């Protein structure tokens, strides 16, 4: 509540009600020292004989684990509560710290409690499997991402864009197509995968076809919405310059559609990954991330499944980050981009 109601402007809001459940802003240096100390303790503990797989899990182990858990949560709370200069840095540090501790306790507890690998392999095993199967996973990456996803995504988005431009001057078609295109977001389009496999075979073209179908409609709808986004005043200005249709499209309406198109490109990047991976569940050659995930899961080789999931996740976030960076470069003038840091 008081996050929006700026506490500096209205200190009564913060202190009187105790709505904010977090500690009062602590000192940055003390927090960093505390976090560093807990890191050191955590490292020593992890490599001590106490946390070895063979060691019996006793009271000492649990006491130390509980202490570390308390230290970790206090560290996260204190980092989260830091305000003022460097707030953005500390905000991302909080998330990183949280991620680190999750991984740490995952590793520690899975090893200590000897959780079966099928249930939950430890992060170290997943990384090791990633390293051991680097060439296999690399081949899967090329098969799924470079071939199916990238080609399908580019074709689907390109087609959506071209169709949007083509029917821009046909309001009748737009009124007919737009409601149908919007409805497709409710439909599990990935279900066409078995048909795509029948038509285009087991290789990557069938996956790319599914991806094209999944990415086409969001791009079409967003581009059409973006082309309508320019203001009436701006359009009238172009009109008063006697600008032709193409000139207006190029100088005004396409630039103002760019943020809409990037929104669709980003959504489509993750849709395309999902589409290609799920389409491989329906039938694929003996490579591909989706194939790897489904067959190794059947063989109960879960560390490799997790490794393939890690590859897919990293691909998704990287694609998103690259597109965001590109957006900032292309649409640097747009208010939605200027507002960001």
């Amino acid at each position, binding site marked *: 509540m008081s*996050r929006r109601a700026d506490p500096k402007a209205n200190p009564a809001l913060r202190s009187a009600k105790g709505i904010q459940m977090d500690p009062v802003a602590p000192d940055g240096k003390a927090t960093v020292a505390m976090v560093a100390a807990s890191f050191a303790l955590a490292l020593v503990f992890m490599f001590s004989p106490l946390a070895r797989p063979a060691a019996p899990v006793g009271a000492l182990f649990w006491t130390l684990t509980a202490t570390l858990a308390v230290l970790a949560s206090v560290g996260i709370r204190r980092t*989260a509560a830091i305000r003022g200069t460097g707030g953005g840095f500390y905000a991302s540090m909080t998330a990183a710290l949280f991620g680190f501790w999750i991984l740490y306790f995952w590793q520690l507890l899975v090893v200590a409690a000897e959780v079966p690998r099928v249930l939950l392999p430890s992060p170290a095993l997943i990384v090791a499997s990633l390293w051991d199967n680097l060439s296999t996973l690399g081949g899967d990456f090329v098969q799924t991402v470079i071939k199916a996803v990238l080609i399908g995504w580019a074709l689907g988005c390109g087609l959506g864009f071209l169709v949007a431009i083509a029917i821009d001057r046909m309001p009748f078609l737009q009124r007919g197509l737009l409601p149908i295109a919007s409805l497709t977001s409710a439909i599990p389009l990935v*279900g*066409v995968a078995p048909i795509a496999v029948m038509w285009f075979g087991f290789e990557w073209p069938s996956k790319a076809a599914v991806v094209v179908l999944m990415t086409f409609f969001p791009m079409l709808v967003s581009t059409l919405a973006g082309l309508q986004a320019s203001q009436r005043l701006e359009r009238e200005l172009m009109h008063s310059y006697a600008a032709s249709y193409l000139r207006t499209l190029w100088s005004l309406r396409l630039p103002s559609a760019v943020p809409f198109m990037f929104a669709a490109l980003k959504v489509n990047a993750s849709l395309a990954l999902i589409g290609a991976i*799920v389409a491989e569940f329906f039938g694929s050659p003996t490579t591909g991330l989706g194939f790897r995930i489904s067959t190794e899961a*059947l063989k109960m080789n879960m560390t490799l*499944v997790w490794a393939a999931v890690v590859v897919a*996740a990293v691909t998704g976030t990287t694609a*998103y980050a690259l597109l965001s960076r590109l957006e900032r470069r292309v649409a640097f003038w747009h208010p939605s981009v200027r507002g960001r840091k």
Partner: protein
Amino acid sequence: MAMTSKRHGHAAALGSQGAPIAVVLALIALVWYGLAIALNAQGAIERNLADVMWTWQDLVATTWAMERPVLPAPHQVALDLWASITGWPLSSPRNLLFHTAVTAESTLVGFILGTLLGLLLSIAIVHSRTLDRALLPWIVASQSVPVLAIAPIVLVILGSIGLTGVAPKAVIAMYLCFFPVTVAMVQGLRSPQVIETEMLHTYAASPWQALWMLRLPASLPFLFPALRVGVAAGLVGAMVAELPTGAQAGLGARLLTGSYYGQTIQIWSALVMSAVLGLVLTAAMAGLEHVVLRSRRQT
């Protein structure tokens, strides 16, 4: 409110859109029938018309009535749908509605659980700066990750602790619904203006009262679009979860068995049925939104 007015305009425009939509649908049907001729012609000539003299009328009639066409004609799919719905009792696995009910059940169970989880977590995030900074970035980042890829892992884990049937499918639908609901609700719960929160503060309202009287009502316009996205994602999750489980029942299983045995018409009718299910589920969410937000519409 902008969202409500937009939707309102959409609904009003729908009346004048009847003709364009009909034209576009007719175009799609035309292209479909044309494609059916083009794609099935070769198989028809080889398999059905090899020994007889045939005219182009025969060819067209054959391509629209094949048993295992490359692309079945729309009326074949419609007839197969009708036959599989009316030809068998509802409890029979040959009835498509039986499979639809199986998929809808796991979708809805997962959807309800995921929505509740998302609601609880978003309330916690809004009230805790720690959770806001530590957890929310991960939830937002996970939207760019193909989380559906861990479905086989979930199936194996739940299978090895003895959970089969609806539970694993519902869990997958649940976590797919959970992400959009959480992100949208955090936004929605923070949407009240400073002046509104300060007014509640001058009334000495407790955080719970502020949540119940201000934040939750203010978040509803954010919640419903997320519910529509969530239920559609949950349906995909439920269908994908049906693939590796031996494919006994459900629309996803129906798609898979159809592709095993080359029953193209069966695949298409399962596909049409899943589209109908998706549309019904999202329409139900839109109807719920309509009812809940009725008092807010300004006409």
